[in-house]
């Protein structure tokens, strides 16, 4: 595996996690990203954002090797096989789940090396850097184990047949050998504001086995047997790792500041939950039969947004709080020099009207699945609809969170229409107070606005905004969320224009115009999956299947997708793995499967 200036390609990472936090592991066995104790906390390994100062936990042969990787079948347990001239070993990486029968570590990452053939010399190097490398790390040996501590945070290493480490310039390093049939175990036990649990080898092995058993059992709940099943199941497994189990929230991605263009400034923190993703998430989870996760997420966002309701903030922290202040980490060099490195997200203060459409759509999906809403929630939902009817005329920052002046984005207005339509449907079913006369009036007004001002005769397409007569791939959501019949002339024209202006092969760009940030970016993978989804809804099944085949083939070696991709090199860009991309993949696959079934009938 090649590193550039110490940085692995984003494509070379795989994800392991436990529903509270997640680690990114490169093909060379280096854990280059891990936040503790939760996914939105400070990173203790952030080599992805600074190859020298970020810190990592590497484990690899000391001699030249070839590497192959896969997840265990239907699982989030990762297996990396290192083949050297003298032997082969398998490295199993997992974040273990709590064992209720035993005192378990607060967070635990296990690395098990098994000898498959011959004899392989290996080395591990443990270099924790608390607080994204900004806080001092103390390494100490006590109670027979090595500890890394800072303030109330502590890590302890459990080592079995994994060599005798020596501290060297703030890191621990050891060499060891594993022969055929032999095994070594390295365990990282983490604690925050509490004592570290020092696990026995047997308990750690038992938790690893239990974790390995859990994932296929969970995957067995997925009700999908259509095309691209492996990709759909992998996406579901990724989404499960993005679920913050203590609250039910789902982060957009487990990383911060991976750049949308190498060397560029489009580097954002995605370790928050965007309400916009709510409808895609609920749709995907319900369509996959993952009702528990769908319902937990629904109640999480209804609770989280309660303070601001009927106004909705566009993103929330996983614990439901709203404080997401953005700031730069000056000490980090950024992924391959991509600065600034941002944590927190300033977009939280923006007005984005499309959020109301997706939230009301997701409430509609939830009610269709469950059949009812309690009275108090119903009243809250009606107030959200009132708010949309009252505020749809205001300019906003749009789905792409542009950081220049606000304007009247066509997609935002159309989604306000979608939201009011769903509110009317909910009122018709009697689950929310009926003020549909007022909502319908505003919906009609919105449609008149979109159809008159959001349409460009010359392009034969809806456009980004009345004052921005250009294409925007988010307009594909007008077909997916049924603003109009997908096969209507206007949406056919819009899809044709998007293909003409924004599509290159399987790649689709979000837009070509200004957004107030500056610099290049890659093609947006979610938009490609939206296009496949739209094809299916328009009955263009051959095109949908062909595009989907190409897109699924773009995943990395373990089936993961980033936010963006460089069409020229195929390099992944942006935060990784990206929930929205995997959601769009699932929904596109299911739409195609549904369309195939309809066509067959």
């Amino acid at each position, binding site marked *: 595996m090649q590193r550039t200036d110490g940085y692995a390609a984003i494509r070379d990472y795989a994800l392991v*996690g*436990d*529903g*509270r936090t997640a680690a990114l592991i490169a093909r060379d066995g280096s854990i280059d990203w891990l936040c503790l*104790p*939760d996914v939105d906390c400070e990173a203790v390994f952030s080599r992805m954002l600074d190859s020298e100062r970020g810190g990592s936990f590497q484990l690899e042969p000391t001699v030249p090797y070839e590497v192959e990787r896969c997840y265990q079948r239907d699982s*989030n347990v990762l297996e990396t096989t290192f083949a050297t001239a003298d032997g082969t070993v398998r490295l199993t990486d997992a974040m273990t*789940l*709590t064992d209720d029968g035993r005192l378990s570590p*607060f967070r635990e990452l296990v690395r098990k090396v098994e000898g498959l053939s011959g004899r392989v010399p290996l080395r591990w190097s443990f270099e924790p850097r608390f607080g994204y490398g900004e806080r001092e790390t103390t390494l100490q040996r006590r109670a027979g184990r090595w500890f890394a501590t800072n303030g109330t945070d502590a890590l302890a290493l459990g080592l079995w047949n994994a060599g005798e480490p020596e501290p060297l310039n703030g890191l621990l390093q050891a060499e060891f050998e594993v022969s055929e049939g032999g095994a070594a175990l390295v365990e990282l036990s983490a604690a925050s504001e509490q004592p570290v649990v020092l696990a026995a080898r047997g308990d750690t092995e038992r938790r690893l086995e239990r974790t390995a058993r*859990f994932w296929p059992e*969970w995957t067995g709940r997925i009700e999908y047997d259509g095309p691209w099943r492996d990709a759909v199941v992998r996406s579901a497994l990724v989404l*499960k*790792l993005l*679920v913050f*189990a*203590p*609250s*039910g*929230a789902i982060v957009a991605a487990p990383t911060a500041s991976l750049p949308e263009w190498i060397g560029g400034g489009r580097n954002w923190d995605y370790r928050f939950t965007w309400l916009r993703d709510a409808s895609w998430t609920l749709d995907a989870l319900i369509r996959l039969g993952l009702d*528990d*996760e769908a*319902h*937990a997420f629904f*109640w*999480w966002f209804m*609770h*989280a947004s*309660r*303070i*601001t*309701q009927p106004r909705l903030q566009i993103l929330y922290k996983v*614990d*439901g*709080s*709203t*404080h997401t202040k953005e700031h730069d980490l000056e000490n980090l060099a950024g992924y391959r020099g991509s600065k600034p490195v941002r944590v927190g997200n300033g977009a939280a203060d923006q007005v984005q009207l499309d959020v109301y459409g997706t939230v009301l759509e997701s409430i509609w999906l939830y009610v269709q699945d469950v059949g009812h809403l*309690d*009275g*108090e*929630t119903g009243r809250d939902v009606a107030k959200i609809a009132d708010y949309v009817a009252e505020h749809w005329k205001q300019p906003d920052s749009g789905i792409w969170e542009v950081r220049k002046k606000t304007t009247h984005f066509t997609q935002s207005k159309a989604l306000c229409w979608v939201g009011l339509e769903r509110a009317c449907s909910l009122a018709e079913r009697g689950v929310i107070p009926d003020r549909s006369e007022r909502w319908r009036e505003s919906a009609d007004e919105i449609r008149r606005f979109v159809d008159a001002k959001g349409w460009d005769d010359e392009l034969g397409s809806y456009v980004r905004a009345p004052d921005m007569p250009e294409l925007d791939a988010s307009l594909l959501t007008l077909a997916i969320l049924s603003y109009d019949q997908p096969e209507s002339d206007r949406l056919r024209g819009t899809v044709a224009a998007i293909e003409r202006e924004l599509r290159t092969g399987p790649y689709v760009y979000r837009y070509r115009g200004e957004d107030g940030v500056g610099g290049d970016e890659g093609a947006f993978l979610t938009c490609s999956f939206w296009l496949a989804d739209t094809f299916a809804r328009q009955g263009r099944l051959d095109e949908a299947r062909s595009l989907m085949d190409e897109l699924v083939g773009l995943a990395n070696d373990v089936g993961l997708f980033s936010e963006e991709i460089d069409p020229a090199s195929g390099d992944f860009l942006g935060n990784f793995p990206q929930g929205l991309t995997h959601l769009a993949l699932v929904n596109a696959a299911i739409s195609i499967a549904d369309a195939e079934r309809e066509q067959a009938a």
Partner: protein
Amino acid sequence: MSVWGALAGGAVGTVILTSTLRIAQAAGWTRMDIPLLLGTMFTDNRSRASAIGYVVHFLNGLVFALVYYAIFRAVGHAGWGFGAGLGLVHAMFAGGALVNAILPAVHPRMGTPWSDAEETPILEPPGFLLANYGRRTAVVNIVAHVAYGAIIGGFAIGLS
């Protein structure tokens, strides 16, 4: 000092405490909903949960009034100010341990910091000082409990 006074204070204080929290919710200061949190221990039907939760909370309010009374008796002193002080201690206990740590540990539908991928709780945990339910929740919690304690203290001597 009278136990009946303390109980009457507990009843009135609980109504005031619950109303304060409800007003704070409506004003957008907090997402703290004690009746819902308590009621969902018994059912996942929200309407029924709120109703059950109000009853449970009211009974809790009376039980805590007896605890206040026991403390008044032990130190031989009661009153509005002393009751308010105990209310402050009560608020810190509620935010730091009772609702923050003990409730999630026994609540069948609430997440904890230990919840992992095997679990899908439908209620988020309150967090330290209940801050997950809004940054001003800690202040609302203190104001409500100080009022509750002051009323019990006042009633305990007032009805003696």
